[in-house]
Each structure stands twice: as C-alpha cells, then as structure tokens.
C-alpha cells in the first residue's frame, strides 16, 4: 500500500502511546450492528500502480477522443489548443495540492492568481468586478438568477430561446424548489433571434432576462436593445457566454448593458474532459458586489505594509451567514481558474483577438463549404465559431452514422431537444483553431455521402 507511510511497528508504538489495544478498538463508538468485521465482501483488493494504469488505459482506449477524428462538436464545451506550459504550471504541487486559501500569509500564490483572474474576467466581460469562479456555466447561470431575485425582489424570470437547454434544465430544477416563475420557449431553426418577443414579455414582475451570447444555435442576439428594455421595467439583464473566446471578436456583454455576465470558462486552459470539471465565470457591477455569490479575493496590506491578498466579504458566505447566505457554494474551481488565467495571460490582448479571428475565419470557411453539400442548408446569417445546419433527414442518425465512419460531425439538436420534432433536422457545427481545412473537407465529403 504505497500511499500509507505507517509501518506495523509504528502502529504498535502509537497504540501503546494512546493506550488502546488495537485500531479496531478506536471504533468502539460505532454501533456494533454497523461495524464491518473485515474488508467489504466482493470487492477487489489493492492493486499495483502498473495494474491500475493498465486498467484505466484499457478504458480510455474504448473512447474515440476528439483529437483522433475530424471533430465539430461544441454546444457549451469547446476544443481549443492549450499551450503546453498551462498544464505544466497547474501541475506544480504548490498549486495542485493546496487548499482554499484560508491562511493568506502562506497562500499568496493562489490569492494573487485569483485577483488577476478576477480582473481578467471582469475586463473580458466588460464588468467592474468578478468572483473567484464557480462550478460551471450552468450553475453560475442559476446563481445569477438567484442574485437578480435578491436585488429586484421579484421572481419572474425570462429565459431567451437561445439559452443552452442544459442551462434551462438546471434553472428549471432549482426554480421548482424556490418558486421562481420561469418562462422559456425552445428556439426555432431560424436565423433570427427572437429579441422582439423577449422584449415584449418583460413586465413589472420580471426580475431578469437571461440571454446567451452567442446563443445555442450560434446566433447573436442584440444585448443592447434587450438591456434597454429590461432596465425600463426595472429588470436586470443576465448575459450567458458559453464560448469566452468569442469575446476576442465580439463586443462585451457589459459594454452592451448586461448587469450580470456569467459564463463557462472551459474554452481557455481547461479542456473538454467529458464535461467536467469546468469553470463558472461570474461578473457584475460594483454596486451589486455584496449580492454576488462565491468567493472573492481582495487586495490589502500586511503588518509590514506590503501588498497582499485575502479572501474577503465573507460575511455573505455560508460559513458565516448559514441559512441567510447569498449561496450555499463553498468550493470554487480554483485550479481551473488558474488554467484559464495562465492561458489568457499567454494570449494577452493580441493573442485572444488573433485566436478569435482564426476561429471565425475557419468557421466562415466551413459554413460556406458545408452549405454547398446537397441536402444541407446554412441556418445562420451571423455567427462566431458555431452555426446550425438544416440537413435533409434526422440529424441524430446523421451524427451516429458519421461517427461510425470516424467523423465527429457536430451536435444534433435532437439530442439537446428530444421533444422538439421541428429541431430534428438541426445539426450544430463548431469550428475552432484546432479544426484543419482537411477536417472541413472530410466532413463535407462524409455529409455528401450520407445525405446522397
């Protein structure tokens, strides 16, 4: 048992020092009926490092990884190239194996990084303040809605049709128990965002309007127009960004009037990881900072007057306010925030813009190429790196059949909206800088064969 340092002589000496006859005797307070006499039956015994590695590698080999096929999936999880130094740096033990920075004098590395991260996120989103990250984009979205309820003291929520359906499900799950009234319609397979319908629905009971930008079909809603309408009714605009790389090319939600901007930070530094752990981003205006959930890192000074950083405004948090807290969240995504922050500092202003431009250029190329395939129609007029196609036939079958040919063609909207027959022909295609022009050609060829 390679992870356990105590030897049998150590154990004997310690038991003697304690005055206990055996280790089992230390469990005397456990009711007899619930004490297991030995290792649980039917489970394997410990295994060597090599044996475990072999088992896990065998499981990994059963998967078709994104990098081993032409790959076009997105819908809230994006494949981008991660510079080698990012993973190297987050694996430094002082980052990887540290805990929440409860003792700031010996946690300045994590704290300064979080302060830098908060500043990066606030700037990217066009907001004044950001927190030190949340679980993921979907849960951050719900936390933002909760925050809007606390600020406006209203409970009617309008979700734009283009909000990711998993985010909608997450919100609906929570609202079922808190009593917020949720209004949402599934999108139509159309190039138009339903901004006017959204605006018409805003009323004096509305706490917030939640709009994804770009939305789940890759379309671009007019946040400025929606913000103006929401503010006129005393409601807040929550913008949701699932692809932060897009903000290297697009105006920021904050600049367009969003009051709270949340997002999924996985695109920068974190990697696909089959859905988690990801990284919730959360930013808002300074005046709402005390209503913001999650951890916050702030600048201060030490006893010698030197600049330093601490976790702050903890009086909002569960460990002090308990049932009056702004959220029950305790854990954030510190290590993912570090990866995000390193990747973004390697890119910088210039790099993020170039990365966004390259994503958009390749996506335009792919959209035009795929639109030429007989039986394929490009839905979007505007998009960043993700767009919807209407294919002749059931897109779920198309995706499955293309997977059998070794092409990961995209996300069938039928998978995201199983109860919406009108979206069954929708195929969401995502292109990033990792997509080669050969990949695009391969997808076009495979689609052409499949739809012939």
């Amino acid at each position, binding site marked *: 048992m390679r992870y356990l340092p*105590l030897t049998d002589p*150590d154990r004997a000496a310690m038991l003697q020092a304690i005055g*206990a006859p055996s280790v089992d005797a*230390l469990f005397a307070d456990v009711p007899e009926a619930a*004490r*297991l006499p030995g*290792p649980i039956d039917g489970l394997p015994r*410990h*295994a060597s490092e090599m044996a*475990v590695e072999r088992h*896990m590698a065998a499981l990994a080999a*059963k*998967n*078709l*990884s994104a990098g081993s096929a032409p790959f076009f*999936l997105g819908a809230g999880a994006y494949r981008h190239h991660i510079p080698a130094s990012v993973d190297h*740096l987050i*694996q430094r*033990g*002082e*980052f990887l*194996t540290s*805990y929440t920075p*409860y003792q*700031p*004098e*010996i946690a*300045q*590395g994590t704290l*300064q990084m*979080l302060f830098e991260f908060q500043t990066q996120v606030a*700037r990217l989103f066009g907001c004044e303040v950001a927190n030190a990250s949340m*679980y993921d984009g979907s849960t951050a979205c719900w936390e933002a809605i909760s925050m809007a309820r606390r600020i406006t003291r209203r409970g009617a929520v309008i979700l734009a049709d283009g909000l990711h359906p998993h985010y909608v*499900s997450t919100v609906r*799950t929570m609202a079922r*128990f808190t*009593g917020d009234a949720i209004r949402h319609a599934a999108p139509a397979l159309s190039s138009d965002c339903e901004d006017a319908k959204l605006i018409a629905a805003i009323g004096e009971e509305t706490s917030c309007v939640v709009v994804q930008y770009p939305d789940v079909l890759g379309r*671009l809603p*007019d946040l400025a127009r929606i913000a103006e309408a929401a503010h006129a009714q005393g409601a807040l605009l929550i913008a949701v960004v699932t692809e932060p790389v897009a903000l290297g090319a*697009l*105006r920021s939600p904050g600049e367009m009037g969003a009051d709270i901007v949340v997002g999924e930070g996985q695109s920068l530094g974190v990697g*696909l990881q089959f859905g*988690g752990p990801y990284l919730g981003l959360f930013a808002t205006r300074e005046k709402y900072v005390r209503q913001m959930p999650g951890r916050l890192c702030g600048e201060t000074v030490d006893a010698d007057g*030197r600049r330093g950083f601490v976790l*702050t405004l903890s009086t909002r948090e569960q460990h002090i306010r308990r049932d009056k807290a702004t959220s*029950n969240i305790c854990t954030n995504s510190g290590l*993912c925030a570090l990866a995000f922050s390193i990747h*973004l*500092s390697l*890119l*910088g*202003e*210039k790099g993020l*813009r170039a990365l966004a431009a390259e994503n958009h*250029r390749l996506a*335009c190329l792919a959209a035009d190429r795929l639109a030429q395939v007989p039986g394929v129609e490009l839905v979007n007029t*505007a998009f960043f790196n993700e767009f919807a196609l209407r294919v002749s036939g059931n897109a779920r079958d198309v995706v*499955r059949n293309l997977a059998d040919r070794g092409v*990961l063609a995209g996300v069938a909207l039928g998978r995201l909206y199983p*109860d919406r027959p009108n979206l069954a022909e929708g195929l969401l295609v995502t292109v990033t800088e990792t997509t080669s022009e050969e990949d695009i050609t391969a997808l076009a060829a495979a689609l052409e064969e499949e739809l012939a």
Partner: protein
Amino acid sequence: MNVNPSGWRPSMSEASAESPPATVTGNRALMLEEPLIFEIGTAETCGVDLPEAATDAPDRLGGFARSEAIGLPGLSEPEAVRHYTRLSRQNYAIDLGLFPLGSCTMKHNPRLNEKVARLPGFADLHPLAPVSTVQGALAVIYELGEWLKALTGMAAVAMSPKAGAHGELCGILAIRAALEARGDTRQVVLVPESAHGTNPATAAFAGYAVEAIPATAEGRVDLAALERRLGPDVAAVMITNPNTCGLFEREMIAISAAVHAAGAFVYCDGANFNAVVGRVRPGDLGVDAMHINLHKTFSTPHGGGGPGSGPVVLSEKLAPFAPLPFVERDAAGVLHLIEEENAGDDHPGSFGRMSAFHGQMGMFTRALAYILSHGADGLRQVSGDAVLNANYILRSLEDVLDAPFGQTGPCMHEALFSDGGFAEGISTLDIAKALIDEGFHPMTMYFPLVVHGAMLIEPTETESKATLDQFIAALRAIAERARVGDPSLHQAPMMAPRRRLDEAAAARKPKLAWKEGGDAAPS
C-alpha cells in the same frame, strides 16, 4: 527607485540587529516578490504563436464586432512560466508538508491519478459525443458509482453534483421530490449545531426553514431534543457523521429510526467519510442520502479551492428521484447514458438536471484510480490509519491543550482542542500563525462553533509517525508559550511570505480588481 512598474515597491520594517536589511528589489534570496500580470504584461506581448489577425477581413459577426480594447496583458512564455512558478512558491501545499485542516481532509495526491486523467481517451472527450464513441468514459462513471454504492451500502448514486455543497443540494432536492411525490408539504429541515455551514444554507436554498438542534455536553446530537422537535412538519435532518467534533454519533441508528418514524429523511454530510471508509456503511446506519467529497476521501486534488466533486448516494426510497443523467448497463454489458430523452420510463420521478453535462469526469478517473490502488483492504487500512493518527495527536497534546471531548472516548479522524488554558489575550489565531513559522499549515480554526476558540486537527492516513512527532513537538512548544502569555505570538508569522494581512481593511474598502494607474499600495 521603482522596481515594480506599478510604482509599488515592497517596504520592509526598520532593519534591526535581529532582522535582515531591506533589499532593493524586495526579494530575499530564493523568496522572490512578484508583481501582477497587469504590471509586467503588455497588450503587444503574446506567448502563443497565432496567425496575425487581418483587420479588414470580412466578418459575419452581425454588427457586433468588438472595437474597444479588452485590457488584457500578454506575457511571453518564459515570463509566464516565471510568473506562475514564483507565485506557486508563495503557497503552502500538501506536497510540502502536513496540512491538518480538520473537516477538509488534505491527504497525499497520487500522481498516477493525474497521469490517467490526462489520457487523451478521457481528457480529450466531448460530453455530447455519440454514446457509441465514449463507452470507456461511461465505464469509469459506472464503475466508480458501483464502488461508492458498495462502500456506503446504498441503492443508487447520482454522479453529477460538482462539489460537496452541490451534493447536499442534490440530496435535499431528492428528499423534497420524494415528499412531494407523496403529497407531503413539510417545511422544516433540522440541522445540528455542529453541522457544516453549508448544511443550513443548502436547506434554505431548497426552500426550507432551518432549525438548529443542540449538541450535548459530550459533543454529540442531543437525541432527546431531536425527538422532541420531530413532527409532521419536519422534512429531513441533516447530520454530519462522524461529526465536526471528531466524534462518531453513537446513537446514529436510533436517530435514523426516530427520524423515519416521524416520516422524515436522514441526510448525512459525508465530508468526514474518510474516517470510516471500508469499515462502516452509512446505509447500515439508516442514512437516506449522503454526498461524498471525492477530493477529500478519494484524494482528488483541490487546487487552491477546487474543483470538487460530490456524488450522492441514495437509499431505495430516494433512488427514483435522483437527478439526470445516469449511466446504466444493460444485460449485454452496453452502457447507456440516461438523459432527458430516455429517462421517462425508468426515472419518471427524477427532479431534473443539476448542471450541464455529466459531472466532474476528470475527478472520477482520479478517484477510481485511487480506489483501485487501495482496494477494499486498503480503504479499510486508510480509515484505520487516519483514526490512529488523529488519536495519537489527541493523546499526545491533551496535557498541554484543552481537549473538550478528550474523555468521551476515542476521536475519529480529527482531534478537537479549544483555547481553554491560554493566557489572557492569546487566541487560537495566534497559535495557528505560530505554526506557520514552524513550517506547518495551521489546523482549522474557530470551527466547529460549539467549542470556544476551536482548533480542529486532521492529520489523515498519509502522514508518517515522524511527521506527527515533529508536529506534536512544535505544537507543544507553542502551547506552552500560549499558557504563559508570550506576547511574541501576536507577531506570528514572522517568516512567511507575508506577515499578518489586514482582512478588515480588505472588507471595508474592497479592491477586487486591478485598475490602471490605481492607487499604489499604502505604505
């Protein structure tokens, strides 16, 4: 001379005969000061080679193209590597030494786990990839889930909760859904005083009124008080076992029986599962729902605050209400992902989805590698050694530190002390900061709230006897200084990267983001 581009320069206390003189750079040999990325990066620097952006390229951004600068600093690769490496050196971590944070369970993070989590077959996998192409990933989720069920003696497991507190929410929502399914509108959740702060917050967020249940003088749930309060309005009791005083709830079976008799459910906070893993199945204690912090018991790295992962095990009664998605295996051994489209028949009561996608897959691979490495026999040894180490600390220090429950029996995985016996003016905080100068991360301070000036020490099973002996010797010496009122304790830490930080000032006038030309740090 301004060394730092921000105009800020570290200032040191007046040099005295005992302290080294200030340096020009603010650095001290290998202990290097580090400016912010905003002070060293520039808009023109880039550490990644990318195609030049063509400024006049046509776009299809619908008129929303960005014109304003974002304000992001860029670093070249060597600058970035140095920046983050220097920052890392200002962190304490389990790789450096003992991290005895009670209730947080900081144990060795095996690097094999990191290696397997990074296999492209796991790391480079999209959550919405066709199910036929991700059978190995679903097998990891399924296999880990089966282990968690076996270790807890429970009927079902929900894998998607993203952290312990998210798991609490999952358990309470399952309870609420089960109650609603039988037309029951109970409104109250009872939470013992010794519970984690997330417990009452969770119950409140699920729409419940929260009431506290007192602890006995022995540091356990007051069963009589609990029984008096139980009634038709109580939905659940949230209990932490082993509890935050480091004690096993001896009456747990009776507590569960009383709660069930009242028509309510037992939620167990599984943050302390490391103490009993492989030896006690919570299902045998009558627990209906319990989250398991994979980062604690199964040693997935917590990276400066997260990510966590909080799968929830559920009893037969709650199993039908678990959240989506699930992984299920059919008779032919094929794994299926049960989501919205195919949950209808077998999981009609599911309360829905708690987050996008399937949970913290990167943590599942690590936890499974950890579990397979230990096996059933090793996990039993884990809890045995963790409890042995905690009791060794308790007995080795109880003559110099007040141990409020030291006489109520063995502790479990953590030893609890109070500030009783310290000289006037010396606090738990002083003790904690003095430990920093000795090279140890401090214990958990001022928690649980039921003990004055609490110090909760959890060594875990991955500490050697030699490390424990050194820690005990250091803490004994500090305790002696606290008893006689050594005023120098207020100055600790003297040798950390920073002296005591002014947390009050940080909260009074929050500075949460760096501002261009912002005021330099006060001198």
